[in-house]
């Protein structure tokens, strides 16, 4: 009887640990398959030609992804320009300026925003914002603009990233000890001065983390951008001209690509994967730095 119980215990432990091995196995398999399928094309094309070539034209055998890399950076930067000010200020509003009831409503709204699928954001951008941007470009005298491009992409991504930035910034601001606020107020500083000079600097590492996480999302976002960036792998003439980034190139072409073209798309995925790995690694370093500091 006791032996049987012992065996069950041992067996259970083995099962539990086997399950834990699964996620390690998954990440290793993903790495192996991305590298194994991504590297051959880079070799054939040549890493310099691949990363720094500015012409992407698979039917002519040109596989340069520089325009897409630049596109990804543009859109991520644009997204931050939209989302960081709005996100941090909203976090200030939630923590310092509104009552409990409004806070609950705002938090619920932010939760739902976080849950809305990216395809719906893209749809909204495509139908509402792209025509608006086209009008705007016309008024500004920019000719030949389709409206889709960095401008709309940044706004849509900015809205999508807002929940990440707001939630983490709220936590960071709430974690600042109350005594900081009281001390500053006691020295005669008004609330606004206290927030700008004391609270936000004290919460800056948390806010910074939220921005990095948001950037990670902006780099990886696909479906929303596929609908609002347009589709031309060239350097955009303006923020209202259509363009392409790494993720959109994959999603638009993967379904029909063959041969070297297909392999090159996987190589794009590999580049993206390495980008993201660098990002999560730097995030980890920052977190570690915070703990030590």
């Amino acid at each position, binding site marked *: 009887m006791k032996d049987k119980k012992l065996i069950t*215990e041992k067996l*259970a*432990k083995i099962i*539990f*640990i086997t*399950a*834990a091995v*699964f*996620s*390690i196995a*998954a*990440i290793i*398999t993903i790495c192996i398959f*991305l590298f194994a399928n991504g590297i051959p094309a880079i070799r054939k094309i040549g890493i310099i030609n691949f990363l720094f070539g500015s012409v992407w034209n698979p039917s002519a055998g040109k596989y340069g992804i520089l325009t897409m890399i630049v596109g990804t950076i543009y859109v991520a930067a644009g997204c931050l320009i939209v989302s960081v000010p*709005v*996100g941090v*200020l*909203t976090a200030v*509003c939630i923590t310092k*300026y*509104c009552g409990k009831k409004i806070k609950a409503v*705002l938090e*619920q709204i*932010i939760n*739902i*925003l976080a*849950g*809305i*699928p*990216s*395809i*719906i*954001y893209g*749809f*909204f951008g495509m*139908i*509402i914002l792209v025509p608006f941007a086209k009008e705007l470009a016309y008024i500004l005298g920019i000719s030949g603009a389709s409206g889709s491009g960095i401008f709309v992409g940044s706004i849509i991504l900015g809205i999508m990233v*807002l929940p990440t930035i707001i939630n983490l910034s709220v936590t960071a601001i709430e974690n600042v000890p109350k005594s900081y606020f009281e001390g500053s107020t006691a020295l*005669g500083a*008004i609330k*606004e001065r206290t927030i*700008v000079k004391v609270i936000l600097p004290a919460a800056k590492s948390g806010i910074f983390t939220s921005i990095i996480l948001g950037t*990670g999302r902006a*780099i*990886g976002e*696909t*479906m929303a951008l596929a*609908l609002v960036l347009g589709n031309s792998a060239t350097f955009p003439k303006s923020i209202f001209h259509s363009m392409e980034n790494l993720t959109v190139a*994959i*999603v638009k072409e*993967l*379904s029909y690509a063959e041969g070297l073209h297909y392999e090159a798309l*996987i190589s794009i*995925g590999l580049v*993206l*994967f390495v980008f*993201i790995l660098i*990002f*999560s690694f730097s995030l*980890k370093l920052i977190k570690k730095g915070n703990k030590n500091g």
Partner: protein
Amino acid sequence: MDELNVILLSKQKFEKAKLLKLFSIIAAILVVISFLGIIIFIIINGIPNLSFNFIFGETTARAPTISAPVYNTLIIIFFTLLIAVPIGVCTAITLTEYLKRGNKFVGLVKIATETLSGIPSIIYALFGMVFFVKFLGWGYSLKAGIFTLSIMILPTIIRATEDSIKSVSDSLREASYGLGAGKLRTVTKVVLPSASKGIFAAIILSIGRIVGESAAVIFTAGTTFNKGALGLNSQGATLAVSMYVLIERGMIDYAYTAALVLIVCVICINLLSTALGKKVGDKYDKNN
């Protein structure tokens, strides 16, 4: 207080400082406007085409319906959870109950799950296509979609289960051991039931992610609108994918309605998980 400050500061400076309040309220209003804008946009444009037939009827060439995508979505949710929840919960149990914190293996699993949770869905799509669809030769199939999504939601389930297991108080475990129960019995009869609400919230969150996911499903489960005859080996679009396909085909009116159904599902899932989260929170407050 404010009057005192006005006296202390010059009036100009004081008004400048108040701009922060103004701007932060404007920012919050912008958030609310974008939320309402998207919701109202979908509702107003989606309702005219909403009909019983659109949701439950059979697809024809002229009038697509979302009955098969809804069915596919349910199938994918069910089987994805069937794979990911046991693995995720068992992993969390290993990390919290069976191995010590400083253990190297625990560190490895943590790094793996953190990395997995940071990978964007397009990379999962590529991996699913390269591994399940091509390497294993499954072709576009619900099966390939299910396995890809299982890996994708695994980190969410592990993380949430870990958190809720950690918040079960040690005195419960000690009491169970004191009564002569073994480790397995303590874990299954005492720890898991106390952590069940947190796990349930994680499951609902994962359902939300599966429902909203499109990139990772397009290139694994495919984009066809019909109910396949091959079960899990047949291909099929989920609700979110069907919306993308409708947009690409230029059937914008139908896309609105698919979006409406999608967004209603997502909001319900979201409210449910918030409600559950609140209940879990209440329980902890009472215990402490």
